[in-house]
């Protein structure tokens, strides 16, 4: 809000000054200058207070968002056996233990595999869907009305998994998997992840496909390229940033998913987040658990920094090139 006040104050000053100089002259203004300075001082104090308040809120938000991550990483370096912050002493012992501990490997591998496979499947069917929808959209005006209905229905359908609360999806899926006798199988978790991350992947893939303009594809085809050749040589290279981003976001969301995995977990289908979730719930917080969380936290921050840097590099190269 202080921006408005700055603007308003500046405006008021301008309004005050212009007639003073031109019409009223300088002397009447001098007489009131004490009050004017006081008022101006009051305004600037008010602006300053507002600014300070907003700055304070900003820092509070930042602290609230980063705080938990810092605490997790800090607590994992304590020398005590239970997680405590600020850490007492500094040691990497718990990290070594978490890495050596083979209990994490099964869930970790399962999570990794499921996220890769579900993101890959989703990206593939999302590309197919995006291309199909685009063709209908392009020709809608000239053709029939039911095409428009088709597009909006498919779109709502594609985005629907994200509109339902996860827990409702989880309950619905579990009911069906139990009746099919599939509960506790890897397939059930894979199917759930494919459903959950599809809307995110679809939105980004569609944005990526918009980067491959229709006229380029048509000129390729008019030069005699086959449909598959056009796809591999024109569409895919042009849309690869969006598609890559879709895959990455889908992977990140999938590997962090807890709610649905907790519902669908069986003895052989404990993913890494579920493993940590169960451990945090069942026992007092030990330092090696905090270290495992710390590894995930550092991994996330690292992944984000890498993404930001690669995006910046990409942007720079696209500017110069």
């Amino acid at each position, binding site marked *: 809000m202080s921006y408005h006040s700055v603007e308003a104050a500046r405006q008021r000053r301008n309004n005050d000054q212009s007639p003073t100089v031109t019409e009223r002259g300088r002397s009447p203004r001098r007489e009131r200058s004490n009050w004017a300075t006081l008022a101006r001082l009051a305004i600037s104090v008010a602006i300053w207070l507002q600014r300070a308040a907003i700055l304070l809120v900003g820092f509070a938000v930042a602290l609230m968002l980063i705080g938990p991550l810092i*605490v997790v990483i800090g607590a994992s370096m304590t020398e005590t056996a239970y997680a405590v912050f600020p850490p007492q002493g500094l040691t990497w012992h718990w990290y070594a233990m978490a890495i050596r501990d083979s209990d994490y490997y099964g869930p970790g591998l399962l999570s990794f595999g499921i996220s890769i496979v579900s993101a890959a499947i989703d990206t593939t069917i999302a590309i197919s*869907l995006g291309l199909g929808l685009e063709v209908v959209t392009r020709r809608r005006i000239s053709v029939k009305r039911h095409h428009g209905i088709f597009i909006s229905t498919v779109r709502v359908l594609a985005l629907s998994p994200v509109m339902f609360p996860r827990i409702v999806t989880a309950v619905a899926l579990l009911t069906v998997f139990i009746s099919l006798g599939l509960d506790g199988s890897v397939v059930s978790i894979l199917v759930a992840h494919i459903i959950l991350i599809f809307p995110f992947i679809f939105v980004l893939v569609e944005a990526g496909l918009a980067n491959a303009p229709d006229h380029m594809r048509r000129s390729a085809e008019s030069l005699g390229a086959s449909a598959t050749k056009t796809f591999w040589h024109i569409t895919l290279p042009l849309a690869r940033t969006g598609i890559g981003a879709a895959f990455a976001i889908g992977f990140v969301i999938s590997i*962090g998913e807890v709610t649905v995995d907790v519902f669908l977990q069986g003895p052989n289908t404990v993913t890494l987040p579920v493993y940590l979730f169960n451990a945090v719930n069942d026992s007092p917080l030990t330092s090696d658990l905090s270290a495992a969380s710390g590894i995930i936290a550092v991994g996330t921050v690292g992944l984000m920094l890498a993404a930001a840097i690669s995006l910046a590099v990409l942007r720079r190269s696209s500017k110069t090139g």
Partner: protein
Amino acid sequence: VVKRFHQAVVACSPAIIVIVATFLVPIVKLLSGSFGVGDAKEGLTLGYFRDVLTGSQLDHLLVSLRISVSVLAICISIGTPYGWMMSRTRGARRGAMLGILLLPILSSEIVIATGWLIMLGRNGVINDLLAALRITKEPIDMLYTPAALIAGLSALLVPFVALPTSTAFAGIDSNIYRAAASLGAARTRMAVSITLPLIRGALLSGASIVYALCMSAYAIPTILGGGRVFTMPVDIYSKYLVLYDPMVGGALSVILLIAVAVPLALFSRGGTTGTLAGYITKPKGQ
């Protein structure tokens, strides 16, 4: 690549089949099952809903609603100033502010919940700090209370208010304020009649996302509630998997669905899909 309508339909079909078979069918089954469709013993009935709404579950719904409304209030009152700050910042500082917002979205809920678990404990940082400042004499039990849930969920969900409002603030043409000032509008008047209407859409869409995610959050309420605070999702889990009562679990999830959907429909007439697409693609596009 694809030329005719039926070819396009073929191209769309894998996605449609996957979503209908593995999402739509289970949801429809859940909805109809909670009314007793396909139930040999009872037949069509509203009995499960009656059981759910007369028992202690009603309290859990109220707990969920209270927590969600508090989180919503906190997210709006601190997320909006943050969004405003972000819209006034440029360069590396803006990048840092954006990064801070993206951290909780990208990192696992478990990690964040663990962090709050360490902070809020009897020997945690916050109690240490309060004792050091001589505000409290004895450590307060903050863990496993609704307040702990509110803190954890707000920290997770603030970005969904801060991100859309920051783009809305950045999109306001400052000439409007000049025009208003030249017409003699006071600052409060400008805030009410210019700023508020212009960020209204962003606020509403952010608020509806926060509300929906808060009502259906499961992992954080379980960890920070420690079996003492029962929200709807925690209740659904215990009914369904601990007590193994799928029909009541199903009816509860239908009630949760209604409790989420009705305010959302009132909130955003424009539909949430557009805003969703907006905040997913925005970080990339900026």
